[in-house]
């Protein structure tokens, strides 16, 4: 037994050692292609670049990404590039996971970078700059957010407080319109929001209050925006972990099964609650408090270390093209950034255009986000 045991110990050790060596050799021998050189344009003379040899392009996207199959086929036909989707988690988790492996990416192009993470994206050099040809078509309000073509804006979807119409007009009461209304006694116990530490819309709503009330530089518990949250708290605001819980379990409007008539959601949520355009504009089950909207832009970029940067550039141009832009609203419940893109009927009819949503420069968000979330948490934990 004892000699037998010695023998087997060394056998196991040899297996382990071999495996470890193989892995180390593999780690040293791999090389990252496409370093340094600027990305060639994905579009030449008004047409997407076409590849002679078929290319497989990996697109990293969050779980909400969707596109019509026929629109995607259009891209594949035009360019001879086959698209393989790699999806995981929401925008923040996906972007952070990508930042962790910056320089050695799982894909070529990333879609859905959250505006609030642009600071970290730049610091980690997650993407290589690319100045899209079609950026010229993009509404300047979105095109000007990021300079130098680090990332390209693709869509926007404002975060706003949504209301359950029936709970107000059905009871003959006025709809709340402003941030101040939310702290009024008549709206006590009506609002549900998401925790900014765990939720993307939750963070956007917190940033909205900072943009609206100021005090972002104030590190004390008496910052102006925190005073507003104290008033919200006193008025019975409920905080939950994420959008799903807030919208489906707490909110009373539309498909919500809860009891609170006010919820932080998106400007594009009301059309999702209407089946067709026969419903009158002022009779939709839910609506948006436009004064509370915070700008949220989603960006795409070419990942540093991408195998096929040129095909990635072509895909970015394609996403700014007419067919993809027009396809996005019903696929992802977001708005196109290219001016003049036709909207689907339900969108055109039921979504209020948010003329000037609240916003903060992303550099300021990057520098202060952790502290703001910490200050907020002090109040709510």
């Amino acid at each position, binding site marked *: *037994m004892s000699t037998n*045991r010695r023998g*087997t*110990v060394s*056998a*196991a050790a040899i*297996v*382990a050692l071999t*495996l470890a060596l193989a*892995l180390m050799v*593999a*780690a040293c021998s*791999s090389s990252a292609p496409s370093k340094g050189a600027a990305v060639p344009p994905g579009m030449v003379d008004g047409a997407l670049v076409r590849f002679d040899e078929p290319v497989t392009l990996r697109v990293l996207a969050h*779980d*909400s*990404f*969707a596109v*019509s*199959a026929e629109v*995607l086929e259009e891209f594949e036909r035009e360019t001879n590039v086959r698209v*393989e*989707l*790699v*999806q*995981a*988690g929401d925008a*923040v*988790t996906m972007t*952070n*996971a990508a930042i*962790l*492996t910056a320089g050695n990416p*799982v*894909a070529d192009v990333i879609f859905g970078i959250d505006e609030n993470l642009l600071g*970290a994206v730049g610091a980690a050099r997650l993407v290589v700059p690319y100045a899209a040809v079609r950026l010229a078509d993009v509404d300047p309000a979105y095109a000007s957010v990021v300079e130098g073509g680090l990332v390209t804006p693709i869509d926007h979807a404002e975060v706003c407080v949504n209301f359950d119409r029936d709970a107000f007009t059905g009871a003959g009461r006025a709809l709340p319109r402003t941030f101040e209304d939310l702290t009024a006694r008549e709206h006590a116990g009506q609002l549900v929001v998401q925790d900014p530490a*765990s939720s993307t819309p939750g963070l956007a709503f917190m940033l909205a209050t900072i943009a609206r009330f100021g005090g972002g530089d104030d590190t004390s518990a008496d910052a102006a925006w925190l005073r507003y949250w104290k008033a919200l708290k006193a008025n019975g605001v*409920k905080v*939950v972990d*994420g*959008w*799903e*819980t807030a919208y*489906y*379990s*707490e909110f*009373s409007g*539309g*498909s919500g*099964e*809860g*009891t609170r008539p006010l919820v932080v959601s*998106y400007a594009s949520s009301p059309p999702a*609650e209407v*089946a067709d355009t026969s419903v009158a504009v002022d009779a939709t089950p839910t609506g948006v408090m436009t004064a509370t909207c915070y700008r949220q832009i989603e960006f795409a970029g070419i990942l540093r270390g991408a195998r096929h940067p040129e095909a990635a550039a072509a895909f970015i141009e394609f996403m700014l093209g007419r067919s993809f832009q027009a396809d996005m609203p019903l*696929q992802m*419940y977001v708005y196109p950034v290219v001016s003049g893109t036709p909207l689907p009927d339900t969108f055109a009819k039921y979504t209020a255009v948010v003329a000037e949503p609240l916003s903060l420069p992303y550099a300021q968000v990057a520098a202060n*986000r952790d502290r703001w*979330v910490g200050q907020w*948490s002090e109040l709510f*934990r």
Partner: protein
Amino acid sequence: MVAAAPPLLFLAVFFVWPVATIIERGLHPDGAWDLSVFADVATDPSIRRVLWFTVWQAVASTVVCVLIGLPGAAMFARFRFRGRAVLWSALLVPFVLPTVVVGVALLGLIGPGGVLGVDLSGTVWAILIGHVFFNYAVVVRTVGATWMTVDPRVEEAARTLGASTWTTFRRVTLPLLRPALAAASSIVFLFSFTSFGIVLLLGGTAHRTVEVEIYQQTARLLNLDVAAVLALLQLVLVVAVLWWFGRSQHRRAVALEQRRAEESQRPAVGWQARTFVAGNLVVIGALLGAPLVVLAVRAFSTPDGWGLGAFRSLGDTRRGSTAYVPPVDAVRNSLQFAAMATVLALVLGACAAWAIAGGGGRVPRWSRFADTALMVPLGTSAVTVGFGFLLTFDRAPFDLRSSVWIVPIAHAVVALPFVVRLLVPAVRAIDPRLHEAAAVLGASPGRVRRSIDAPILGRAIAGAAGFAFAVSLGEFGATAFLARPARPTLPIAVYRALGRPGEWSFAQAMALSVILMVLTVAVMLLIDRLRPPGVAEF
């Protein structure tokens, strides 16, 4: 020792390495160790609050689970009643449901506007109820499977000698069940200790576990240094608790003369037996049944009224979109991944259990160490492992980050402890005299394993396979944090449907959950029947 090598190597590569990598990345960022963050975390009073809450809610969840689960285990072990087999399989349904769906189901009962009229959301009660909902099956199926093999005549003998029911249980049955009970409670403890979805969904902002903190520091804020310290803290606590649990499990198990299940079960006759069975069924109905009914009701109530509309719409609403997941594909993907993970976990787990329990020989000295080590993955944060995978397996030819192989592997890491926990007590309970007798009669070691061990272990193997399959069906562990090519499973399809507003999205998510429930019951029934001939009776 040979047998222990593959499972230990597997865990070293797919668990220890990624966890060590991400912790090193957090504490050793730019080529130098930066340990100042330890002081920051240690002096943060809110972290101390989080630690204290994590421990006590886990202890409370475990105690409640065991107190409610033990009578359930007794019922399944000792009584025959109609629907017993289906119920035994259905117990695992809560275990595989996506956390978001469990949140919807429980909030539909005890949340705002809930059926019961009390809003417990945001309270610790909601968290405890959630943990019991999830883990009831762990206690009942683990302890119940052992209880079935306890010869009822032993208990009857005690009764004949004048012991009361309580004394018989305490002095005779309980000691025989102790290894299984320790196994079940350590698993429940670890699950509650590292609970994350339930705490976030039901606990509101006031209740946070270490796991929630690690998730937020890692996935949301990418503060890997703070996350690393918290992950280490979690690890130390988990190992300490496991070591303590290991003591009660390690006491030499009593070799049992096992009985056929049919012999140890009887119909519920007499008012005491009937009340006992009825009481358990009420508990199961209220605890497990009611939330599942809420889901089913929501799946069948569509914007167009009652009916199968949501199920039908799964086939066409988003057809033509890349987000469209044909339900048949989701079912197939789920089953394929689960089958691969189960085979992997069973093979590795059987090797480990055999070595740890000293199958067919003396119990090796290192067995307690290996025993504890194999359990640690259950007590480790999924986001740590997931992000660790990203950092570790990132070079060809081992670039597993976006390979589909990562899915069954990650599931097997979580399933392995279940398999080991269920098999070790079973191997220990084999009477060594059976081996000796067989050897004396001229049986080769292989023949002994085939003819004596395999039949005796059959029930434990079936139970372990059930849990392994359920772990994978439920998408436990690190896979939620990994990007992977389009092979969506049922839980992933549920998450995608729930991420969109609108009546149809919600009804579809519920419909997919109902499909997952039915699939779970079907698979568990099948596994319970799949035992090789000659095994089923034990």
